[in-house]
């Protein structure tokens, strides 16, 4: 591992690290437009020009400079300040002054860097070059060519990630203009990422445009629940309203991308299908009454507990313990397949055919019990009336099995489905962005979800809802703090050995197969 010096501070960095990333490791932000950690280096914006002190000739661009022993750079010289200021002046020369009506405001690198590195007075006496504006280029994206800084991030995304290559630079000189072939439209499932990676307001997301100024938004780290890939996301919300999901970088899972249908799942948060209040026999109820009804009616029945492939590890863990320790003789099931109505789609990149976010987790928890089975077994058990009552966690169990409801169904979840509709008792739970928790994706990576907006309506965090059932059935199962539930699970499950919320952090950890193996902490993501 080479050692480089940044502003006099030595740092050892992995082989192949460029100087933007190396500087970030010592807390030094080098401004840049065209560089993106998950795309090839283009080196065209020139914003990351730095001085080379030793081991090369400068000034040079940091993004194309790989760390090597003896390399020393400076980002704090007068020359660097002057170079940044000049690049800002050039970039803004033909840029329209439309910040008040530009939806990138607040997360625009032209604005941010002007404050940090520009602050020049305009000395433009000549007319600006004008380009085309407000072009509808796809289902999710609007293009304003005049705001473009020609960084080619979107071009490289189309070439390197989706392989579709629709966006290109046309012309040359200061008439260079980003665009599409006339009459063509973006035709892939990853359009939203174009708006994310555009450092300025050239590509904006139709869905989010003019919905909210970004400085009002709070962000919570979470994971997309759209499929088993488990793409890392930021949930952007204000109060109890969610405005968008943004991809959150995780090189081991989704790089910096999410698919469009995953991105649009934020709409489920406030959808009419949300379960807002406890219900008993179809009528609105209260938590005490509904819980009492559930526990009373379950008493003495032959019970099946269906763990949730869409529920967190914590919820599944407590549901398993509820079944084993408070509902004596209950069988535990994990159901294969997707809920009816789930999209049928998959690709090589991020979209998995398995539309559940935590099948691995549900299966792992189920494997800790001796009395577990799958869908076929449940189906025949129901047919033979060996099971008279079902406790279902989030999944559409009846829909998946294609069976009639047994005499008693207790449903715990956040979204209505055919099971919740048939359920005698419905207990509304927080959605996956409203509560902390962990999931395991298709690659066996344990990932942490943090709490975003408050639960809507009367919904309660999942572990709390389950524990309240336990309390009425013989006693609490212990702490209802999610982190504590997780740690108690980790103690009894060798695959999760040693894991804590703190250790999972923003990037998660791979399942360790042997308890002796301590997982390596994943490298910290580069600061943006």
């Amino acid at each position, binding site marked *: 591992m080479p050692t480089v010096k940044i502003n006099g501070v030595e740092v050892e960095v992995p082989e192949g690290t460029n100087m933007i990333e190396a500087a970030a490791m010592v807390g030094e932000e080098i401004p840049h437009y065209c560089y993106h950690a998950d795309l090839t280096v283009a080196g065209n914006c020139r914003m990351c020009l730095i001085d080379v002190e030793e081991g090369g000739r400068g000034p040079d661009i940091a993004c194309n400079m790989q760390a090597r022993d003896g390399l020393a750079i400076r980002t704090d010289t007068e020359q660097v300040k002057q170079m940044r200021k000049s*690049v800002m002046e050039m970039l803004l020369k033909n840029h329209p002054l439309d910040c008040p009506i530009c939806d990138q405001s607040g997360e625009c690198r032209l604005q941010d860097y002007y404050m940090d590195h520009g602050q020049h007075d305009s000395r433009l006496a000549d007319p600006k070059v004008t380009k085309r504006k407000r072009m509808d280029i796809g289902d999710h994206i609007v293009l304003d060519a005049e705001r473009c800084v020609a960084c080619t991030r979107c071009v490289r995304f189309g070439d390197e990630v989706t392989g579709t290559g629709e966006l290109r630079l046309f012309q040359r000189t200061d008439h260079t203009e980003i665009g599409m072939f006339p009459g063509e439209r973006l035709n892939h499932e990853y359009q939203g990422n174009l708006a994310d990676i555009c450092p300025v307001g050239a590509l904006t997301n139709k869905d989010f445009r003019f919905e909210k100024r970004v400085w009002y938004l709070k962000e919570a780290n979470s994971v997309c629940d759209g499929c088993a890939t488990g793409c890392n996301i930021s949930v952007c919300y204000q109060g109890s309203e969610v405005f968008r999901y943004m991809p959150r970088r995780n090189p081991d899972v989704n790089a910096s991308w999410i698919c469009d249908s995953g991105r649009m799942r934020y709409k489920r948060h406030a959808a009419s299908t949300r379960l807002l209040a406890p219900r008993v026999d179809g009528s609105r109820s209260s938590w005490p009454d509904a819980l009492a009804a559930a526990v009373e009616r379950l008493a003495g029945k032959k019970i099946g507990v269906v763990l949730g492939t869409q529920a967190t590890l914590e919820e599944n863990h407590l549901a398993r313990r509820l079944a084993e320790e408070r509902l004596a003789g209950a069988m535990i099931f994990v159901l294969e397949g997707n809920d009816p109505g789930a999209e049928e789609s998959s690709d090589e990149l991020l979209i998995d055919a398995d539309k559940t976010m935590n099948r691995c987790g549900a299966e792992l928890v189920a494997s800790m019990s001796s009395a577990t089975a799958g869908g076929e077994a449940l189906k025949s058990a129901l047919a033979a009336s060996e099971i008279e009552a079902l406790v279902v966690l989030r999944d559409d169990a009846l829909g998946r099995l294609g069976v009639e409801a047994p005499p008693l169904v207790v449903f715990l979840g956040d979204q209505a489905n055919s099971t919740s509709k048939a359920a005698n008792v419905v207990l509304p739970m927080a959605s996956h962005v409203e509560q902390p928790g962990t999931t395991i994706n298709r690659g066996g990576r344990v990932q942490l979800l943090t709490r975003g907006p408050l639960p809507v309506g009367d919904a309660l965090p999942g572990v709390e809802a389950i524990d309240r059932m336990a309390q009425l059935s013989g006693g609490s199962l212990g702490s209802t703090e999610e982190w504590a539930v997780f740690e108690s699970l980790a103690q009894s499950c060798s695959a999760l050995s040693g894991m804590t919320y703190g250790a999972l952090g923003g990037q998660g950890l791979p399942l360790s197969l042997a308890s002796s193996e301590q997982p390596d902490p994943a490298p910290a993501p580069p600061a943006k």
Partner: protein
Amino acid sequence: MDLHQKVLSRIWDVDGSHTLDVARANGHYQSLEKALKMQPAEITEEVTNSGLRGRGGAGFPAGRKWSFIPGPEKRGGKPVYLVCNADESEPGTYKDRFCMWNDPHMLIEGMIIAAYAIDCHVAYIYLRGEFRPVQARVDAAIEEAKAAGLLGKNILGSGFDLEIHTHLGAGAYICGEETALLSSLEGERGQPKLKPPFPAVEGAWRCPTIVNNVETLSAVPYIIEKGAAGYREFGTEQSPGTKLFSCSGHINNPGVYEVPLGITMKDMIEKVCGGLPEGRTLKAVIPGGSSVPVMTAEEAMNANMDYESIQEVGGSYLGSGGFIVMDDTTDMVAALTNLLRFYAHESCGQCTPCREGVGWMYRVLQRLCDGVCTESDLETLLDLANNIHSRTICFFGASAAMPVQSFLAKFRDEFMARIDEAATSLAAPLPVPEGVLDQGAP
């Protein structure tokens, strides 16, 4: 020293010099026979020792460039490409067109020898789009050479194979820059690539690639024939050999002339170029193509035609040898504006300072020409040039900046005169339209 030495232009006068028969009758392809009996490394060494420098403009030692090609064990099975830069796009330069038109076989022979030296089996000649008639002639020469066993499989029984293809550009100055040329060859926009990696390590199709100018490659057969020492009989210690100068501007005999490096610029102008038109005096010289800094008459009279002297005396570069002479009738503000119009038209648009800055410089200059300007415009102009030079992906930024910097430094009084004129005309009372005073006056 004799002002004319014919190495590259040796057979240009001979009728039918572009045909294989005439070329062979004049000794062409004998160097190839000799070269194929040498070790590839010996050829590179001979070219290195000859001191031959890249004639496209950068003046980088040709032999050293070849030596950067990684050995077969480091290439991981990748092929090596040789690309002849025949884009000849630098304003003031038109010598390569003459080389290829009059003696395509000298270039082909040079390319075969170079390819043999660097273990290349597929080579390209990248011609600018306007050179279609030249391309036809080079293609015909390639076919002739192939038919004679001088190209293709098993050249002259040596076991060495080489194919040469021509590739036509389509109007882009920047494609004369070697990495832009490679982008264009690959079917992309002609945008320069980042260095590192350098083309010798990762060039065309990410394979090791050598890009050499037409004139550079055409000099190789002579070096092999006469040896490094033979080539060094011409020119100076540090600038050995002969060079083709494309002469234009205010001279009596514009043309392409081959001279030994090191002759005086005075002789170049007065004798080789036939002097200035009657009654005119020298004002300025651009010695190496439009990108290099301009030289004053005084500097020109004290400089020699070699890489070192032009740099020391004139603060300029020999470049591609595009020798533009300007007499006392030249309006230097208009001349610079003309050049910047060129650069503003030709910026590839890839990186920020060049894309935004060069057009900006041109617009400021246009205003200077139109008399809509103040002294602060000169400051802006120089500041822009300084902020473009050396801050771009390729050398284009510097190429556009150097004329601005040098014109402003050496002919500032002409620019100031424009500003003074503008100030005077703005200060003068505006003409009052007829009748206005009569109507409104009490």
